[in-house]
């Protein structure tokens, strides 16, 4: 436990040092948005700077491709060979902040066995902020009259400064090229 705390402290310090360098213009963290995670903690989107991570958007009531997106993220994270490095962090942000409240995200994470802190399920404060986040990530979605969403299914790899390094729309299996991109990015960090 002590070691874990120390590790977290170290991570915070590293994150802090990085945050002092100017953010690259192309960084998705240039967007000013607040996210709330499955534990109800608020944080700036840009606070995720400092970690290589896998990002996608989803909504919990989706019964079609979304469960496959989550599975593909699991498989992809498992396929990464990065000896001596912390496991890859994964972030899923909801298209549907109206229905995906904190308790709903919390339940979903438990049901799908997505352990914190490696997995973050988050919501924005408003549908507008969700649309901005999707726009900066290059994801498309549209709400249908019955409340469902049509949306693009893509996994996006962000480097520690929030640059989009790679993306894949291979869903349902691991995309080997994408995994290689993750391994290279982790090694560069």
């Amino acid at each position: 436990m002590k070691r874990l705390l120390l590790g977290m402290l170290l991570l915070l310090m590293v994150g802090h040092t990085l945050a002092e360098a100017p953010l690259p213009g192309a960084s998705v963290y240039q967007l000013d948005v607040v996210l709330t995670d499955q534990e109800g903690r608020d944080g700036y989107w840009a606070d995720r700077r400092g970690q290589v991570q896998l990002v996608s958007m989803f909504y919990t009531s989706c019964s079609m491709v979304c469960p496959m997106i989550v599975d593909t993220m699991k498989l992809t994270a498992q396929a990464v060979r990065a000896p001596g490095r912390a496991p890859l962090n994964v972030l899923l942000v909801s298209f549907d902040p109206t229905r995906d409240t904190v308790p709903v995200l919390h339940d979903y994470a438990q049901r799908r066995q997505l352990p914190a802190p490696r997995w973050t399920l988050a919501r924005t404060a408003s549908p507008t902020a969700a649309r901005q986040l999707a726009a900066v990530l290059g994801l498309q979605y549209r709400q249908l009259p019955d409340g469902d969403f049509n949306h693009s299914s893509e996994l996006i790899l962000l480097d520690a400064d929030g640059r989009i390094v790679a993306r894949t729309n291979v869903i349902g299996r691991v995309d080997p090229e994408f995994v290689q991109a993750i391994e290279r990015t982790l090694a560069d960090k």
Partner: protein
Amino acid sequence: MRAVPILAALLAGFPAAAAEYAALPAAVFNSVLPADGIAASARIAAFAMRIEPVTNAQYLAFVQTHPAWRKGSVPAALADEGYLSHWASASAPGDQALPEQPVTRVSWFAAQAYCESEQARLPTWYEWEYAAAADAQHADARADPQWRERVLSWYGRPSGAALANVGGAADVHGIRDLNGLVWEWVDDFNALLVSADSRDQNGADTMKFCGAGAVTMQQKENYATLMRVAMLSALKASDTTRTLGFRCVRPL
């Protein structure tokens, strides 16, 4: 607080009257993009729309009070390198961007921020399409061959020509320049989900989208509007182009 943009605009030598908005009644509208991807009409609540697109003079007043959006200050993630590139400088648009011409070369993020500064937002595609369906006599003139002709003849005009000033003929709602001046951003440009190439909707690529299947486009004869959908859905939020501007809407 309100006096600040006006003062800034006066200093810059441009008049900056408060933007004028006109009301549009609530409607059940047959969009080229069915609401459910099959055939459902869109339900549109009443709203007010800017009667003209945002001009260079108005945009200048905005960047003077919102320096984060000045030419040269915006990060690449929020606007590409073409952002206001036809402006002579950050504080003086110059000969290539006259005060009454619509502002163009602005990204979706920039357009959104501008509308927010006017206590407004970008229109949704449905709101925009509904407003643009009007002519001088009818709220929905789309079945009129002349309406289509007018829209298409604008598409056919050479794109190198200088943009006209805002202030074209008013439609039945009192709104101007929806067709025939510039393309305009909509809030949900990344929601239209229609690929310019319909083959993308088949086979392996169907997995690209999750949900109730690919959206089909209705009213195939209305290709004037479908071309606009194709153009908008091909954009990224940071893109800027010489002929793409915007206007804002407010709820009523």
